[in-house]
C-alpha cells in the first residue's frame, strides 16, 4: 500500500548547550504511510520534528523532499518554507492562539488574501471538515473548545495548508480513549486520501495499532527502523532503553503500620470553573506502604496531589495526616506536618535553576532553626554542609554545592531533588513521576531509594505515567478515571497485570481487543 519515499532526512545532527539532541539521524517517510517515532522522554523526537518543520536548524545533515517526482535537497529557513513543501505539524503542546476564533486560528499565517474573505475561507474549511470528519465550531474563541476539539483545530490547520506530510507529536497524550479512537479513524482516513503521517508516541499499543513502520530513538540517536510486521512491544521497549526491560529491584517486605494519610470524599475543582477534577475520592496509606495512582494523564492525578500538598483548596472532603486534619492548610504547614514532595516537572516546580545547589537543598525548610537563626538570618555554613550531605548520599555528580543548579544534567538534577525530599524529616512522600527523563541507572537508584523509604516506615504516594514502574513499586494501586478512583487493586505480591490496570484506566467498561494492548504504559522501563 505505501508508495515511494517522499521525504528523507540524512545525517541530521542538532546540539543544544550540553545536550546532543539529534545525533546523525537518518529517517524517511513513504507516501500514504504512518511512520511512528518512539523513544523515551528527551530522546530527541520533538527536536527532529522541529527541524523537519523549519523551527530549528540542523547543525549538520540534509533534508530531501519529493518535488515533481524527484527527491531534492531543501533548506527550511522557517516553518513557512516547510509549509510550502507540504509539511504540517501538530505540536506536543498545542499551538493555538487563545483570544482568536477557531477560523482565525485555522487560517492564521496562511490567509487566503491580504483582506480576509471570511465567507470563502469558511466554505473551504467546511469542505475539509466534511472530507476528514473533523468537525468544530468555527466562530468561537478556541479557548472555550474542549481538548479534543482543540486538537481537531490543530489538524485542520495543517490540512488547510494542504499539507501532504503530517507530523503528529504525541497527539494522544491528552486524549480520552474515545477521542483516541476517533483520532485513529481520522488518521486512517487521511492515509487513504494519500497523506503521509509521522506519529510520535510513548504508548506502544498505540504505535502497534496505527503504524506501518516504526522508528525508535534513544539518547539522540535513531537506533532502528522496522515495519510493523517485525515489531513487538518487547522489542521496541528494549530498543528504547537500550537493554532488556523490566528492571527488577527486590521489593522489601514491610508490614504496614499505622495509617499516615487518609483522604475522605475529596473533591477538587479543576482550572475550569465548575468542573471537578477530583470527584469524591477516598483512600488511605499506611506507614511502610507504597500507594500507586494509575491513570491516563489528565484524569485528576495532578489536582489530587495539589490538594493533598496544599496548593489547591478542596471543594469538599477531608485530608488527614496521622489523624490530624490538614484540609485546606497551606503548603508550608503541610510540609511541617511531615510531607515531602518530588514534583512531576522538576524544572518548573522542583528547582531554581540559577540558584546554587546549596540554596536548592533547603527549599521549603529554609526557615528551620538549623538553616536560619530565628528563622530569618541564613546560616550559610550549615546550609552548605547540608547540601554536601545530599550530594554525597545520593551520588549527585557535581563539582561542588556552589554551582548553579542549571549546570547539572537532568538526571543529576532529579537525583538531587529526590535526595533533598528524602532527607527532610517526613512521614509521607508524594512522588510524582520520580524517574521522568532520567536514565536507567538513575532510575534504578531512585527505585532503591523509594524502597529504602518504605523500610524506614514512610508512607509513599506514587503517581506515575509509567505502568511498569507502578506495578514494580506499589503495594496497592488506585486507578483514576475522570476524577474518581474507580478501582483499587491489591498488588502486595505483585499479582496485578498491566492489562488489568489498563482496563480500569479506560473506565473499566471498554472492551479490550486481543491485539490492542492498552496496558502498554507510557514508558516501558
Amino acid at each position, binding site marked *: 500500500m505505501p508508495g515511494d519515499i517522499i521525504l528523507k532526512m540524512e545525517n541530521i545532527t542538532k546540539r543544544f548547550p550540553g545536550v546532543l539532541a539529534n545525533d546523525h539521524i537518518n529517517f524517511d517517510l513513504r507516501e500514504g504511510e504512518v511512520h511512528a517515532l518512539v523513544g523515551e522522554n528527551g530522546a530527541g523526537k520533538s527536536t527532529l520534528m522541529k527541524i523537519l*518543520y*523549519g*523551527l*530549528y536548524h540542523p547543525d549538520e545533515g540534509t533534508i530531501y523532499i519529493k518535488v515533481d517526482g524527484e527527491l531534492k535537497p531543501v533548506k527550511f529557513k*522557517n*516553518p*513557512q*518554507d*516547510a*509549509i510550502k513543501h507540504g509539511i504540517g*505539524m501538530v*505540536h506536543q503542546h*498545542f*499551538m*493555538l*492562539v*487563545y*483570544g*482568536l476564533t477557531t477560523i*482565525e486560528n485555522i*487560517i*492564521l*499565517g*496562511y*490567509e487566503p*488574501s*491580504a*483582506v*480576509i474573505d471570511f465567507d470563502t475561507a469558511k466554505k473551504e474549511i467546511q469542505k475539509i471538515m466534511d472530507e476528514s470528519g473533523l468537525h468544530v465550531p468555527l466562530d468561537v474563541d478556541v479557548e472555550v473548545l474542549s481538548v479534543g476539539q482543540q486538537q481537531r483545530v490543530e489538524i485542520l*490547520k495543517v490540512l488547510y495548508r494542504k499539507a501532504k506530510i503530517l507530523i503528529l507529536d504525541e497527539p494522544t497524550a491528552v486524549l480520552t480513549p474515545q477521542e483516541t479512537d476517533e483520532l485513529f479513524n481520522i488518521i486512517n482516513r487521511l492515509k487513504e486520501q494519500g497523506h503521509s503521517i509521522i506519529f510520535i508516541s510513548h504508548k506502544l499499543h498505540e504505535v502497534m495499532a496505527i503504524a506501518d513502520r516504526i522508528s525508535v530513538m534513544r539518547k539522540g540517536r535513531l537506533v532502528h527502523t522496522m515495519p510493523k510486521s517485525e515489531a513487538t512491544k518487547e522489542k521496541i521497549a528494549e530498543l528504547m532503553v537500550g537493554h532488556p526491560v523490566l528492571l527488577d529491584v527486590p521489593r522489601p517486605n514491610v508490614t504496614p503500620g499505622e495509617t499516615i494519610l487518609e483522604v475522605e470524599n475529596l473533591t477538587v475543582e479543576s482550572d475550569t470553573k465548575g468542573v471537578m477534577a477530583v470527584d469524591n475520592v477516598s483512600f488511605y496509606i499506611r506507614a511502610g506502604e507504597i500507594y500507586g495512582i494509575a491513570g491516563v494523564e489528565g484524569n485528576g492525578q495532578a489536582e489530587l496531589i495539589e490538594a493533598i500538598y496544599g496548593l489547591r483548596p478542596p471543594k469538599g472532603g477531608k485530608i488527614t495526616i496521622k489523624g490530624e486534619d490538614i484540609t485546606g492548610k497551606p503548603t508550608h504547614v503541610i510540609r511541617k506536618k511531615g510531607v515531602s514532595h518530588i514534583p512531576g516537572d522538576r524544572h518548573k516546580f522542583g528547582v531554581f535553576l540559577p540558584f546554587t545547589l546549596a540554596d536548592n537543598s533547603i527549599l521549603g525548610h529554609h526557615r528551620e532553626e538549623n538553616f536560619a537563626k530565628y528563622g530569618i538570618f541564613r546560616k550559610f555554613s550549615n546550609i552548605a554542609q547540608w547540601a554536601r550531605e545530599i550530594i554525597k548520599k545520593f551520588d549527585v555528580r557535581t563539582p561542588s554545592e556552589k554551582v548553579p543548579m542549571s549546570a547539572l544534567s537532568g538526571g543529576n538534577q532529579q537525583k538531587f531533588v529526590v535526595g533533598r525530599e528524602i532527607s527532610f524529616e517526613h512521614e509521607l512522600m508524594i512522588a510524582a513521576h520520580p524517574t521522568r527523563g532520567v536514565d536507567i541507572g538513575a532510575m534504578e537508584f531512585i527505585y532503591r531509594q523509594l524502597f529504602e523509604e518504605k523500610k524506614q516506615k514512610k508512607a509513599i504516594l506514587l503517581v506515575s505515567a509509567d505502568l511498569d514502574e507502578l506495578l514494580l513499586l506499589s503495594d496497592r494501586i488506585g486507578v483514576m478515571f475522570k476524577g474518581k478512583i474507580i478501582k483499587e487493586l491489591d498488588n502486595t505480591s505483585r499479582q496485578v497485570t498491566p492489562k488489568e490496570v489498563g482496563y480500569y484506566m479506560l473506565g473499566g467498561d471498554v472492551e479490550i481487543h486481543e491485539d490492542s494492548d492498552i496496558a502498554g504504559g507510557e514508558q516501558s522501563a
Partner: protein
Amino acid sequence: MWQTIWFIIRSTIISSAPIGYAALGGVFNERSGVVNIALEGILLVSSFGYVAGAFFGHSAWWGLFWGIMAGLLLSLIHAVATVTFKINHIVSGVALNTIAIGVTRMLSLVMFGQETQSKTNSYTQIFGMDIQWLVALMLFLVIAPLSYWLLFKTSLGLRLRSVGENPEAADSLGISVEKMRYTGVLIGGVIASLGGIALYPTIWQSGISGGRGFIGLASMILGNWMPIRSVLASTMFGFADAIRLLDFVKAYIPDEFLTALPYVLVLVVLAGLIGKARPPRADGVPYVRGE
C-alpha cells in the same frame, strides 16, 4: 445654551484627538505584545516634528512628514530595544520619554534659538483646511474605523494579534514574531504621531503633551484594547477636559476629581467591578524562541 453645547462638542473633539490617537497607537503596540509607555514621548516629538518641519519646509506637508518621522523614529528605537534586544518594555519607555523631553528642547534651542518653545509656524493648512481639525476629525471618521478593519479584517491584523496573544504559536506557523512586533510598534507610532500633530500645529512648547500619552494608555485599557472602543473612551476624557472650564462645573465639581476620574475608572474596571478588561496575553513579554 446652544453655544455651550457647541463649545463642549468642539472642545471635546479637539481635546480627545491627541488622546485618542495615543490610545490607538497603544492598541497597535500592545496587540502585538509590546507595552509602550513612550506614547507620551511620541506625542511630544511628533508635535515638535510637525512644527519644525512645517516651519522650515514652509508647508504643512513637510510638517506632516517630519511629525510622523519623529514619532516613527522614537518608535523604532523602542522596537529595537524591546523586540530585537528584548529589554524590559517599561524601562525602554521611561528612557524614551526622558529622551523625548531632552531632544525636543535641545533641537528647539538649535533650530529656533529658544529652548522652551518654537517660533510660530504659519503653515497649518492642508487643502485649505485647518490641519488640526482635519487630523482630529480623521481620527473619528477614518483612522479609528480603519484601525478596526486593519486589525480584524486583514491578514496583517490577524498576524499582529496572534503575536500579542501567543507568539510561540505564531512562530510555529512561520509568522515572524519580530517582524510583526516591529509592525505593531511602528504602525502604532505613526498613529500616535498624528496625535502629536493634532495637539497644536502652530507652536510647539516644552511639556505640551501634558500627560496625554498616559491618558491615552488609560483609554486603551478602558477600551479593552479595541480600537473603536479605545477612541470612544478617549472622548470621555476629552469631554471631562472640555467641561472642566465651564463655570457651573467648576462650581460643583473639584477639578482634582475630574483629573483623577479617568484613572480611578481604569482601576475600577481592572478590579472587575465594572466590565472586564483583558490585556493581550503576551503583552510586555519578550519572546525568545525555544524556551
